[in-house]
């Protein structure tokens, strides 16, 4: 299981065990406009072998409401980044009726499967493995390489993909990896025959312009630096070579780095800087940069318990994801000298620390990890034939910078054999390509997760609860302890929503409720507008569904949160779970 949120799961189980059945009863009685639910199905729906996030409680989905989309509580997804907000509610001002919300979700596996949908499959490398995929920088072409010693270029035609070129005769053995130059005119291919071929794009295809030799055994990886003038290769001979290329297409080896003690599996460049990361069979990740005309190893990331197969930087380059044979994915964060978190750095070199460890999700070796530059989603290719996608939900304690990632998509049988590579398209958000030992390439469309449903049982503000809502979005609801501040008490609630939504809050009435507020009703919130960062609140207007009486829900944000959630556009219905409902005066 994940190392994070241990206490949350304990709380969750407490919530789960209390008062079974009463939630369903409440749903049946108060549900807005929908007929009574079918009898309670098993409460915990999660596909076997995939540990879900803590704090989730699922009840059967009520039939679709008219206000909602066709999928009942589905959402139309607009582009929105997953954001976490801390919301405060002045306790003194308003009553706090306990909320009981229904969670509406069909079945854990089904929802997660729908998030990643197969578009097409291509038998790319006949009778051989497909080892790697690389999208061209423009996103229109996909290069694949495999055990048949050839590199194939795929382009879109209509709704499918066709092979535009076959680059054969470049290598005598398996081609392990391909990499496009940042300009898109060159393609480098690394092979088990210890050479790296550089192919240049010309009118009717590709031609091999240079072959880089020098490694003693199989070249395992090749990567181009973002500037386009540097190339890195690594090999089973434990070395990483850095090559420089000039305008006349002359390649020269400028450095041989022998920092690793074993086979180096993968090299990857930082998206903006000339910083190189390498993953190795010796269970470490090493980072290199140029210092006074010489390349040196500036950091070693230890923590994995077995071979590190692949690394990926996020779009900013502040974070690094590494996947390993120990079935975990680790996220490392860069701390520069003089950082505010007080992490010690030596000299001018930044320090990298592991901030998140995703374990318990994969049942076999993870061969590849890919971090989407556009959406921030993390995809993994695993030896159990499955593809998984994770999204980040911001932490509940901003000071610690401990992100949590939740599983938002899982396709258990993406291929008939091990998945070797996953690659996000650099221009089209949500387009994912994957390849496998069975020689096939599959194209997937990823929908950022939508609905979020959780149910709480009569929780009071004094309880700290984390509900990681999950149907499709990582929505995290944390109800905090009341904090004394200037005489009034506030409850910190963090809500992270990826998509604009209707919020349906059900609440049960309490005696102290003011009479001008609707009681015992479902209130739907609509027309949320973009919230401000830092101070200020966002008024989310809503109305009581039956009487159409307007209500405003105010959300306040704490200055230290990462970003506020933005909601705009049209919405569908979701069910939001909160430990307490807030009703406030109109702002």
């Amino acid at each position, binding site marked *: 299981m994940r190392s994070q949120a241990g206490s949350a799961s304990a709380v969750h189980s407490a919530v789960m065990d209390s008062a079974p059945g009463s939630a369903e009863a409440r749903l049946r009685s108060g549900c807005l406009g929908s007929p009574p639910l079918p009898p309670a199905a098993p409460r915990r729906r999660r596909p076997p072998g995939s540990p879900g996030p803590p704090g989730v409680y699922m009840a059967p989905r009520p039939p679709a409401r008219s206000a909602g989309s066709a999928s009942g509580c589905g959402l139309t997804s607009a582009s929105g980044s997953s954001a976490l907000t801390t919301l405060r509610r002045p306790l003194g001002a308003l009553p706090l009726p306990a909320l009981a919300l229904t969670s509406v979700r069909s079945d854990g596996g089904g929802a997660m499967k729908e998030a990643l949908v197969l578009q097409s499959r291509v038998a790319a490398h006949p009778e051989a493995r497909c080892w790697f995929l690389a999208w061209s920088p423009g996103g229109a072409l996909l290069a694949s390489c495999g055990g048949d010693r050839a590199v194939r270029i795929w382009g879109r035609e209509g709704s499918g993909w066709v092979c535009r070129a076959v680059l054969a005769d470049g290598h005598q053995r398996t081609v*392990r990896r391909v990499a496009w130059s940042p300009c898109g005119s060159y393609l480098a291919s690394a092979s*088990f025959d210890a050479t790296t071929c550089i192919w240049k794009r010309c009118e009717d295809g590709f031609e091999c312009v240079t072959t880089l030799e020098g490694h003693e055994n199989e070249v395992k990886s090749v990567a181009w630096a973002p500037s386009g003038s540097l190339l890195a290769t690594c090999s089973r001979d434990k070395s990483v070579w850095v090559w420089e290329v000039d305008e006349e297409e002359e390649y020269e080896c400028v450095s041989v780095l022998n920092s690793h003690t074993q086979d180096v599996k993968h090299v990857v460049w930082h998206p903006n800087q000339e910083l190189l990361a390498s993953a190795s069979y010796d269970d470490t990740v090493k980072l290199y940069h140029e210092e006074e005309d010489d390349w040196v190893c500036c950091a070693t990331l230890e923590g994995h318990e077995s*071979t590190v197969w692949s690394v990926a930087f996020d779009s900013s380059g502040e974070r690094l994801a590494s996947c390993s044979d120990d079935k975990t994915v680790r996220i490392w964060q860069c701390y520069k000298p003089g950082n505010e978190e007080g992490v010690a750095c030596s000299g001018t070199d930044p320090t990298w620390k592991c901030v998140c460890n995703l374990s318990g999700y994969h049942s076999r070796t993870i061969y590849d990890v890919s971090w989407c530059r556009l959406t921030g989603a993390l995809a993994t290719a695993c030896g*159990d034939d499955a593809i998984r996608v994770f999204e980040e939900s911001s932490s509940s304690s901003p000071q610690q910078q401990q992100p949590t990632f939740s599983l938002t998509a899982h396709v258990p*049988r993406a291929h008939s054999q091990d998945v070797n590579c996953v690659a996000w398209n650099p221009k089209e958000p949500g387009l994912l390509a994957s390849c496998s030992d069975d020689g096939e390439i599959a194209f997937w469309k990823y929908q950022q997760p939508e609905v979020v449903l959780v149910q709480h049982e009569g929780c009071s503000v004094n309880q700290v609860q984390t509900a990681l809502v999950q149907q499709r979005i990582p929505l995290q609801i944390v109800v905090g302890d009341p904090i004394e501040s200037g005489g009034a008490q506030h409850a910190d609630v963090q809500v992270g929503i990826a998509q604009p939504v209707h919020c349906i809050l059900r609440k049960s009435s309490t005696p102290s409720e003011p009479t001008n507020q609707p009681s015992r009703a479902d209130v739907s919130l609509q027309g949320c507008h973009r919230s401000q960062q830092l101070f200020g609140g966002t008024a989310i207007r809503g109305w009581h569904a039956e009487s159409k009486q307007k209500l405003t829900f105010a959300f306040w944000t704490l200055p230290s949160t990462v970003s506020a959630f933005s909601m705009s556009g049209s919405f569908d219905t979701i069910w939001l779970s909160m430990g307490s409902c807030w009703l406030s005066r109109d702002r």
Partner: protein
Amino acid sequence: MSLVLGLLSHTLSRVLRYSGLRRGCHAPRRRAMEQDKALEVYDIIRTIRDPEKPNTLEELEVVTESCVKVNEIGEDEYLVVIRFTPTVPHCSLATLIGLCLRIKLQRCLPFRHKLEIYISEGTHSTEEDINKQINDKERVAAAMENPNLRDIVEQCVTEPTAFVSQCLSTPYVWL
């Protein structure tokens, strides 16, 4: 109210019993399947010849029937774990045997499987290193492209009898 509760508990106990029965039904059948598969695996690996000596692995007791464990991990998919005992504490030969086992099974095993090969504990000084190597599919693939190594493995793995055709017809990926 009490009537409802009574009915509920009755139904509940019925349901539990039924599900318990069903589960009970599945377990021995699955066990039998797994044992069948284990025997299938053993049948394939026992005829592999040792790289040094002219005997098969079975004759040298490098592999035994009990060293193969099969578990069902999904629909029609099995996890095969083999623990073999190398004849000599020589690193390269143990790796070679591991390689032969992997190649033979990859070619000849007809059902969907994931394969893990280990040296049985305590039989080798560098067993962790060897285990890591023989379970690293990239290393295995690269090794098989080395012509010398490939020839040795082919000699060990190919049966001298007419059963060769059986192996060739499998759809599995040739390294």
